[in-house]
């Protein structure tokens, strides 16, 4: 008979290795961005990063079981053509990913000021890959997501490569690994928000209540070995 602790460990391992595989490929793309910036003569222009379209399209298709989109947000003022620039692609049911337009006009009601969004500021400040969220990306994709972010350092500033993980996809990974209805087990984000749980009362996207947190029994860090900071999630089982 499997113990609760074994089921939790298996879930942590599965979730962590699924995410690590996505991070690893995105870091490769980020490496290419850094290399392109170094190879450019003078300040790189948008055209120096044209390869990203294909690289990210391949990346999105490869990980379509978990992610629904990916892109790059350039450091403000780093491109000669525009003060702010964001390129994002969304997976399509069939065919190539589609370019997502964001409203980058500061005077617009729908202005998408990515320089103020956590998925841009947190990894920029941290300087290492980081999972941000869950959060609802209004003006972006309008559903609750987690963004896996990888900074790409260049002489012009730090660009952020990111990919969007839906809670729906992550829930599937979590539940199939856990295979446990009792006790209640919660995958918790750094903002106290429930990423997934095996209990109908503790639903995805809500804040874990104080009274539930008091019942915490076992608690495991989800971070992959060797890089504790990039996946600041906890897997917690609750006492009755």
């Amino acid at each position, binding site marked *: 008979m499997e113990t609760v602790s074994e089921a939790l460990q298996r879930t942590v391992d599965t979730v962590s290795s699924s995410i690590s595989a996505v991070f690893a490929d995105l870091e490769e793309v980020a490496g290419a961005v850094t290399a392109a910036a170094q190879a450019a003569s003078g300040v790189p222009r948008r055209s120096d990063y044209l390869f990203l379209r294909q690289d990210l399209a391949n990346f999105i298709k490869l990980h379509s079981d978990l992610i629904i989109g990916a892109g790059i947000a350039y450091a403000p003022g780093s491109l000669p053509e525009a003060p702010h620039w964001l390129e994002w692609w969304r997976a399509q049911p069939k065919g190539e990913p589609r370019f997502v337009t964001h409203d980058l006009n500061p005077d617009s009601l729908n202005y998408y000021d990515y320089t103020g969004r956590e998925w841009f500021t947190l990894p920029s400040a941290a300087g290492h890959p980081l999972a941000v969220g869950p959060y609802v990306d209004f003006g972006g994709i309008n559903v*609750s997501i987690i963004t896996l972010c990888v900074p790409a350092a260049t002489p012009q500033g730090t660009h952020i490569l990111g990919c969007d993980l839906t809670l729906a996809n992550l829930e599937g990974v979590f539940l199939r690994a856990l295979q446990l209805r009792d006790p209640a087990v919660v995958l918790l984000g750094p903002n106290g928000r429930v990423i997934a749980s095996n209990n109908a009362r503790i639903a995805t996207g809500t804040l874990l209540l104080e009274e539930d947190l008091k019942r915490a029994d076992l608690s495991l860090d989800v971070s992959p070995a060797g890089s504790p900071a990039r996946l600041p999630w906890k897997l917690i089982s609750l006492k009755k």
Partner: protein
Amino acid sequence: MQSTALSTRSLDLLLLLRGSEPEGLGRADQVSYQIETAILMGILTEGDRLPTESVLAGELGISPITLRQSLAALRTKGLIETSRGRSGGSVIRRQIELTDTQLQHKLRDTSTEALRDLGDLAAGISSMSARLAAGRADPQNVEHLEELVTRHRDTADERARRRMDARFHVAISIASQSSRLTSATLQLEAELMTLWWGDPGQPGNEGDLVEQHASIVEAIRKRDADAAATAAEHHSRSGTEYLIEQHLRLTMQAEGSV
């Protein structure tokens, strides 16, 4: 072909279903979808005769040509039958019955987040409908609601009982005298109707459901708006929790079967 003309009330409900269809459909497909949803919900039932093409096209705000395309699609699916002549027209031929497997797959593939989001909207709409109904329902409305509670309780067939449940909630929104709340309720109930509510092997929560319905109507009858809203919200939330519970179970089961 045995048929009866569609009541004005059913036609009104059919028209209020507009907007429930998925994005990206052409106008003809939207109308077929609208009519299919009305059949699924039991607003249109076997033997109902649709108004003449020109009248129906006018009510739906589409051209007769577009309507003919919609009806042709429904005919291909065997949902309606059309005859020519003076007493002709299109008649609903059968009830749509989604299979258990279809309903279960849909519930399994709808994430907890999406179910919670749908449940949040449902709780908002149903509690406000009940609140307003408490202040606005006339004795006839209340009597109708009481009758639906009883009919829901006494319906043995699981699918038919589910349809009765949806009718009950639509009736509350009608009693609230708000056409927009009614439209929102219809669209919501139509979506809930495509999910799996059965749970063979477990006696289920039917008893709870009947009690919850009764307490909503009781509060409306007493014109106690707060109690009606609270009861409706509680009812809606426990329904959402039940769906998420089934979703979690089906997702974990999927591991073994895939």
